[in-house]
């Protein structure tokens, strides 16, 4: 398997349905256009505008990071891309398919990992994965084989037939990640991927995502953990108050923030109002 950095990742488990994967392409493959394209995407709740006309493109074979402070509009954007929320305006294209025009066709290409691991408590892990595979139109036999391999990969094979209500938070998170991979998506949309994972599983997930993009897949992830973003993402967009205020590779971001050699944390603080943050930190020091 191409690009796998962990021998335990299991051959073929993260194989994507991307054309590049089938044709043997790799990172930055020559697919016909971007995997994910947002143009002028807006989301309004009553009078409150949560997302103000976002434009972004994520290529096939890249991990695109989406950063921003609390309430910046990250989760709203992620949920719109996953097809859970409908944008108030603008267009979202997934693999060239407009999610508003052909929602089923667009969603068939996406695997979504939400930030909170709500699952059916009364199903077993294996049943849940089979259920998800069924939603994406997979037959029982192939779904079963993939579920077994994913659960094996995440050390959940012994728990396959136990009801999810007896799982820990981390185990639920692993089932959730498996459920996004089971139907071989072309695009994985992840909201806070590392929450609740132990170090081994966090490492495994990073390797999985890298392998996935190496096979031609695309990852669109939002995170608060800047080290994760810095280590994992090919390109990053920083969203603040519903607007993208900086985007590009790490080098692009450094240039935009005029912060040569700085880490992502410093760039992030600078572009999202770091001066104010510095004052807050100073006053906090006085308070505690």
């Amino acid at each position, binding site marked *: 398997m191409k690009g796998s950095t962990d021998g335990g990742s299991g051959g073929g488990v993260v194989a994507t349905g991307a054309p590049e994967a089938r044709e043997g392409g790799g990172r930055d493959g020559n697919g016909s256009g971007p995997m994910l394209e947002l143009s002028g995407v807006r989301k309004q709740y009553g009078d409150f505008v949560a997302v103000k006309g976002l434009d972004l493109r994520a290529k096939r074979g890249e991990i695109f990071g989406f950063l921003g402070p609390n309430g910046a509009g990250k989760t709203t954007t992620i949920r719109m891309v996953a097809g*859970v929320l409908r944008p108030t305006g603008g267009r979202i294209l997934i693999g060239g398919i407009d999610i508003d025009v052909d929602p089923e066709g667009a969603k068939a290409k*996406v695997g979504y990992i939400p930030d909170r691991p*709500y699952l059916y408590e009364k199903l077993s892990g294996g049943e849940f994965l089979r*259920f*998800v*595979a069924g939603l994406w*139109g997979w037959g029982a036999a192939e779904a079963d084989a993939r579920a077994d391999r994913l659960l094996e990969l995440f050390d959940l094979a012994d728990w396959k*037939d136990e*009801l999810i209500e007896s799982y820990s938070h981390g185990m639920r998170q692993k089932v959730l990640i498996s459920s996004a991979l089971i139907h071989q998506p072309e695009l994985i949309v992840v909201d806070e991927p590392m929450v609740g994972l132990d170090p081994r599983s966090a490492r495994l997930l990073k390797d999985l995502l890298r392998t996935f993009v190496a096979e031609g897949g695309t990852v669109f992830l939002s995170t608060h953990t800047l080290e994760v973003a810095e280590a994992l993402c090919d390109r990053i967009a920083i969203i603040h108050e519903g607007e993208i205020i900086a985007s590009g590779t790490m080098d692009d971001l450094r240039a935009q923030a005029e912060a040569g050699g700085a880490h992502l944390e410093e760039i992030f603080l600078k572009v999202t109002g770091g001066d104010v943050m510095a004052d807050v930190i100073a006053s906090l020091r006085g308070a505690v």
Partner: protein
Amino acid sequence: MFKGLLLGFVGALFWGVTFAVIFRMLLYFRGTQGIGNLLSAKLLGMAFVTFLMILVLSNVITALSTFFLSEDLELVAAAPVDPGTVYGARLMETILDSSWMVALLAVPLLAAYGVVYAASVAYYALALGAVVPFLVIPAVVGSATTLLLVNVFPARRTRDLLALIGLFAAAGLLALLRFVRPERLMRPEEFRNLVDFMAVLRTPTSPWLPSEWVAEALMSYLNGRFDPFPLLLLWSTAAAFVVLGAGLHRRYYRDGFSRAQEGAERRDGRGRSRRLERALARLGPGTRGVVAKEVRTFFRDTTQWSQLILLGVLVVVYVYNISVLPLYTGERVSFLLINVVSFLNLGLAGFVVAAIAARFVFPAMSVEGRMMWLLRSSPLDVRALFWSKYWVGTVPLLVVALPLIVVTNLVLDASPLILTLTTLTMVGMTFALTALALGLGALYPKYDTENVAEIPTSFGGLLFMMSAVIYLAGVVALEGWPVYLFLQSRLSSSDGAMSVLPLVLGVSGAAVLTAVATWLPLRAGVRHVRAMEP
């Protein structure tokens, strides 16, 4: 606004009817020379004993949530708050949650006593003064019972156990109440025996129960010889119980709470999974997944499947009611009356199906609240989701509805025409009632509830039952009258052709109504779920 008005109307109607029934009974009792007051006191005592039983059970179940399973408890447990304060606050919450229904029921009951006995305002103050400690005592007993149970069993197992006990108790009570045939007591010759029975029991039946103290305190006032002792007993017992309950709480709560946080036990579901999947092999993967998921989650949730026990008793009691109808006392009643009763039976059997749909089909979309992230992000069309849920609801309902209507018609000895017509109508009704329940359940969901059993008692549930009754009345009216005319013309050997037209029109009208009642709610539900923002 509409919601408030509707709830207000239904509440007022319920209060009015309860008041009227009790008022009428009390007037009747008062007219009975010598023992009228005794009967009134007995009735009050019986009502409060029933309240007491309901309250203890409901407090045990509520306390499990308020003291052990509620999501905010982790914060409370971590906070440096005195256990006594926590106990007081949680006990208050338990009382409010578990007792509001009984308190609302007590209002028309006590008001009827006040009006019949022409009592002054002081009586109502006294009633309030008696009811408050009466509510506190079972709350303390219920929460203490829960505290002890949780210390023995894990909380999540206890919840299942309680759900089962509660349902068995309710089913037993329902069956018992029905099979003793209380309606016989209203016949004068039976009533003589009741009077004798009451006369023998002049002494209080349960002098140690707070229900008796409430009845004694109120009746002594109403009879003009107020005795403060029962009231003192109520207040002192309530106070002593709260102190004892707080002591138990201090001693056992920490351990119990800690145990309640333990996860559920591991269970093997594999064997069942395979069989179910094989049975559904012909369906497409998406539909098969949803149907299998529905069946599994239903049968693995004790609070859900255990309601089938109550349902079984309901059906048996219904058939029994039909079989004991006084249609065959003495002379055989007319062929026409039997057929009229058959149509009433159709409406009532439809009501039973509606009640079952409210329990099992209405919550179908609400339970998906937290899982909308998955269903909405998947390529499964909302319509396909609805259809899966629709058939999962319709098939079991047909399994209940068809034997119910066929058996009751056979018991009634209805004509083949009526049997065929009502059976076909019942099939249509089941389709429409399932659609109404599913559609309105999607339009008025309760996504945030942890307890599925609460969903049918919501505003949407009430709206569903009202729509179902209107629909059933429509169908019975559209079919019943033309059938009656048709049978009458056949009986009187007049020109049959004249009565065939209304029959055809009526049946067609019912079919159109059924089609509309099936199609409209499903369409509205699908649109609503498509447009919703989870």
